[in-house]
């Protein structure tokens, strides 16, 4: 039935090749990039992007989007961080709070889109502004550092063996991300939630007529995205010395861009968590790697924008060609 396709038809393969090529270029042209610490710091700055990308994959599969992930992430980190600093909230509770805040805003987005019927980009553009406003109403709040009490949460992402100069740091975060990737890939392909996410993206009307409570699942899609954004807030706090109020705008591009590079369909109905992971790694390489080859970090915004357009165009051209031969 299904035609044999070249593996290069899978955008994930192309994305992986691009990631490898970028790494090779950096390795050749930059001495600093070859150091282990560069590798570590690159990973540090990838976790929150990966988590956002994992989350936003679900709305994108339904043909929607969540533009509030960047500002939302910073907003949750700020609220929780402030409570830790000023009100003595234990860090464990702060982490839970981040997840809950993410979940709550996710549900709000879900209701706006799935129940009230607002266009996803306009609903989430608004919540993007709202979370950004809430975020900038707060003051800059560093979460506890590794040495301070409660600093243990940093070591979720980086295990340290030994001390001093001989210390070896193991990036446990990446293991966590890989585990999460397989869990979410399972959720997407083998659970009802995942299946209905794809079904809503493919044909919401038909899904509803099959007796599925699409409103509930549509809300769930954004709730899951919010929850993962909450997790991203923890990862963001773990690597950022001070979470600055009023920031986060533009960070959503790292996540959304990554998902598109990973081959999600621009019109919904198809997506893969593994693809999102690979795609985000491409974005992270662009983001953290450009300074190594002497390009200003602002180039990253331009390049991310261009990469987004190119990956969506690949999807559209592919579809157009498939339609022409049908």
């Amino acid at each position: 039935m299904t035609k044999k396709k070249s593996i290069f038809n899978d955008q994930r393969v192309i994305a992986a090749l691009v990631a490898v090529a970028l790494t090779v270029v950096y390795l050749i042209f930059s001495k600093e990039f070859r150091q282990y610490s560069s590798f570590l710091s690159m990973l540090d700055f990838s976790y929150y992007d990966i988590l956002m990308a994992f989350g936003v994959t679900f709305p994108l599969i339904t043909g929607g989007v969540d533009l509030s992930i960047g500002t939302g992430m910073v907003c949750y980190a700020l609220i929780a961080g402030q409570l830790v600093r000023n009100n003595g909230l234990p860090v464990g509770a702060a982490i839970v709070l981040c997840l809950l805040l993410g979940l709550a805003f996710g549900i709000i987005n879900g209701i706006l889109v799935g129940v009230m019927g607002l266009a996803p980009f306009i609903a989430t553009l608004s919540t993007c502004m709202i979370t950004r406003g809430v975020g900038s109403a707060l003051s800059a709040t560093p979460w506890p550092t590794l040495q301070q009490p409660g600093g243990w949460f940093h070591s979720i992402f980086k295990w340290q063996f030994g001390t001093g100069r001989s210390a070896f740091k193991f990036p446990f975060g990446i293991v966590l991300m890989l585990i999460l990737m397989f869990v979410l890939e399972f959720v997407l392909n083998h659970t009802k939630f995942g299946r209905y996410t794809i079904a809503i993206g493919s044909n919401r009307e038909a899904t509803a007529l099959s007796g599925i409570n699409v409103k509930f699942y549509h809300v769930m899609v954004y709730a899951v995205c919010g929850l993962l954004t909450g997790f991203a807030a923890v990862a963001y706090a773990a690597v950022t010395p001070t979470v600055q109020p009023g920031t986060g705008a533009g960070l959503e591009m790292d996540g959304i861009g990554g998902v598109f590079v990973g081959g999600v369909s621009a019109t919904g109905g198809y997506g893969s968590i593994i693809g999102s992971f690979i795609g985000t790694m491409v974005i992270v390489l662009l983001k953290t790697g450009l300074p190594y080859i002497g390009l200003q970090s602002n180039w990253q915004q331009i390049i991310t924008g261009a990469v987004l357009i190119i990956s969506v165009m690949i999807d559209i051209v592919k579809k157009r060609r498939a339609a022409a031969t049908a």
Partner: protein
Amino acid sequence: MGDVILTMKGIDKSFPGVHALDHVDFEVRSGEVHALMGENGAGKSTLMKVLTGIYKKDSGTITYQGKEVEFHNTREAQDAGIVIVHQELNMVGDLTVAQNIFIGREPTKGIRIDDKKMIEDSKALFKRLKIDIDPRARMKDLTVGKQQMCEIAKAISHDAKVIIFDEPSAALTEKEIEDLFVIIRDLRAQNLGIVYISHRMDEIKVITDRVTVMRDGGYVGTLITKDCTKEDIINMMVGRVIYEEPKTHSMCPPDAPVVLKVEHLNAGRMVQDVSFELHKGEILGFSGLMGAGRTETARAIFGADPKQSGKISVLDKASGQLKEVTINSPEDAVKAGIGYLSEDRRRYGIVVGKSIIENSTLACLEEYTHGIFIDKKKEKQVTEKFIDELATKTPSADQLVMNLSGGNQQKVVIAKWLVKNSDILIFDEPTRGIDVGAKNEIYKLMNKLAAQGKSIIMISSEMTEILRMSDRIVIMCEGKKTGEMDIAEATQESIMDKATRNIS
């Protein structure tokens, strides 16, 4: 025929401005195939949507298996054993066949969906129905006929007591229809109640036990199929005898010049090597089953869809000679004097949110502008002229098109092409969704246009329409032209023969 399993009594339903169902009665017995018939807009689909909980009834009772019931959504109806096979395909293209059949009730092991079991169950189901489909194939890669079969399999898999088929044969080939009938007879033997909605009189006679006829949202009567004739049913449907006499000979003079010549047109799977000629003042009927490629041919000629190859020539008014034209977009086609009236007016014909004026001048706004500014006075004049000429029923030319009836909307589309003064008009299912009275008006209008020298291609799935209107008939089947005949020699049988020629 067994006991009454389902009774609907005095069902009433109104939508804003429309009394869609007026105290309708309907019953189904187990072990019968009960036809539900009526013209477009008679209320058949609405009645079934009330039954399955898509619409809420205003009054009346539904008794099912001896108990009064009211379903709030299709899920509840399904669970109770009443399932509907929709006219519009109701499938999720990105999921596989098995995933579609079991959507909403996937077997699970813990939280994991048991895809293996789903595939096995689908295979068993297909085996029972004697259908050959791979349950792992993606739904959108299947042909329309196969998708329809999956829908039926899905309905049957629900362990249903009552199955409603809403125009199931519209998209099927002759062979597939035969298979479907085998399945339906099999289900009847298992004592299920089957509701069969269709327009095709021949099918009704072949497959059904009883016929209930509806007209304009009301109940007309119920007959035993084998005791009544086609004409009886038609009379009940239309309320008066207007069994149309077919045209006996072409109204188009034999020496009329060719205005459109299509040679070896190829566009995808649905249009393969199609060639034909259209004469001035002629109505050329395009007949065939649903999915025969007629609409695709029209769209390819009109430049709405891309084509791979083919030569299209149009009569050049200045020289009086045929001249080849390149048509890559509707823009090119309109410039060449072709107008297209789609079967799906609301999607492709009119801009419903805009006024009659804005719709009428849409195709040739450049003739109603001074410089870059629109001449609103001139626009209104021409619109009003065509409202009079076509007898469009509307309070004013500023009326939004969405407030007009189907027939009047069709007139607005016709007006659009008349304002543009297009010489070649392609009518795709010109009377779909239009009530009987307005239908006759559209027919008269088409005849008048042809008499005025416009050349018309009419795509129609209704045999009576083809035989009544056409001067000449082109028949297509599975993307190929399989026949061409003059109206004088055309019969239902000869057309059907050619329309099913390629189908094995």
